[in-house]
């Protein structure tokens, strides 16, 4: 049975410290839950790489090409010459292209965010409501009771106000 140890801290620095301790103690990647984004996580837990920018980039490219293709393609499908201009009229279609770049970029960014942040949450994950108010939580999965007491010890040493054990839902 897998459970989680959670230490609640009053301040972000202690939480970060605790996470670093846990990591160096050989625990699996600890998670920090906080009411505000905290700086310096990457120094402690290792660099984080986000795929979001790729989503944004390719979304934008798709939008640019798709926007132009939409405008040009539909113009060719039913010929309605207007204003003495060619059927495929580049300047205005570039504007469509521009707008579609942004639209698709935005949608792709959202998609990238949801995927990379693993949202929305369908399978239950552990959570401590206090971390949304003013506590900073550090959590690690523990395979056994020994591991949990190790973790509890490290967390308390780091200054956790409280350490909880939460069962991982199966």
């Amino acid at each position, binding site marked *: 049975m897998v459970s989680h140890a959670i230490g609640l801290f009053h301040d972000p620095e202690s939480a970060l410290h605790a996470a670093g301790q846990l990591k160096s103690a050989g625990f699996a990647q600890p998670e920090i839950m906080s009411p505000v984004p905290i700086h310096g996580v990457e120094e402690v837990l290792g660099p984080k790489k986000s795929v979001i920018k790729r989503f944004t980039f390719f979304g934008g490219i798709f939008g640019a090409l798709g926007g132009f293709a939409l405008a040009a393609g539909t113009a060719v499908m*039913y*010929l309605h010459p207007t204003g003495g201009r060619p059927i495929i009229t580049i300047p205005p279609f570039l504007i469509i292209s521009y707008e579609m770049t942004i639209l698709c970029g935005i949608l792709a960014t959202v998609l990238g965010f949801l995927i990379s942040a693993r949202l*929305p*949450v*369908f*399978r*239950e*994950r*552990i*959570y*401590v*409501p206090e971390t949304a108010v003013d506590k900073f939580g550090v959590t690690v999965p523990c395979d056994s009771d020994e591991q949990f007491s190790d973790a509890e010890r490290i967390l308390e040493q780091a200054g956790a106000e409280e350490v909880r054990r*939460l069962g991982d*839902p199966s």
Partner: protein
Amino acid sequence: MNVSIVPTLRVLRPAATVALVGLIGIIAGFYANATLFTDTSPEQPIAFSHKIHAGDNEVPCLYCHVQARRSISAGVPSVNKCMGCHLEVATDRPQIRLLANYWDTKEPIPWIKVHDLPDFVHFTHKRHVQAGIECQTCHGPVETMAVVSREAPLKMGLCLNCHKDNAVENGTDCWTCHK
């Protein structure tokens, strides 16, 4: 404590189902009205059978709808024309008696339009007949119908596909039909 949106989704399911069923109902109702309850073969004042005339007796379409080849409108035959034959033919049938009644009182027959286009569509029979389009292309196999019913949807897509396939002159110019 754990977090997940699934319990909430469970809670909301009945309400969502009701909304979904309602929505499906609207779509179904709309289509039901448009397809099932729209009278594509209305009951005419005289139960005239195209099957008997055009099918069994092989009267050509243009014999009665004489205008079709030279006018925008195909025209309904005048009562006079009907009586041209029915003074002699099948005078004892009840429907023919109805016809004779209209003839005697010089009342017009209020036929119901089956193939009705919106007022902003200016379809011309002449060009289509002269181009050799079979009447059945748009009107369906009328010669097999005892009661005329509208087979084709007579929507713009139908016209347009034919115009595009046959590369009709000015065939995709809106002003060809919408003046």
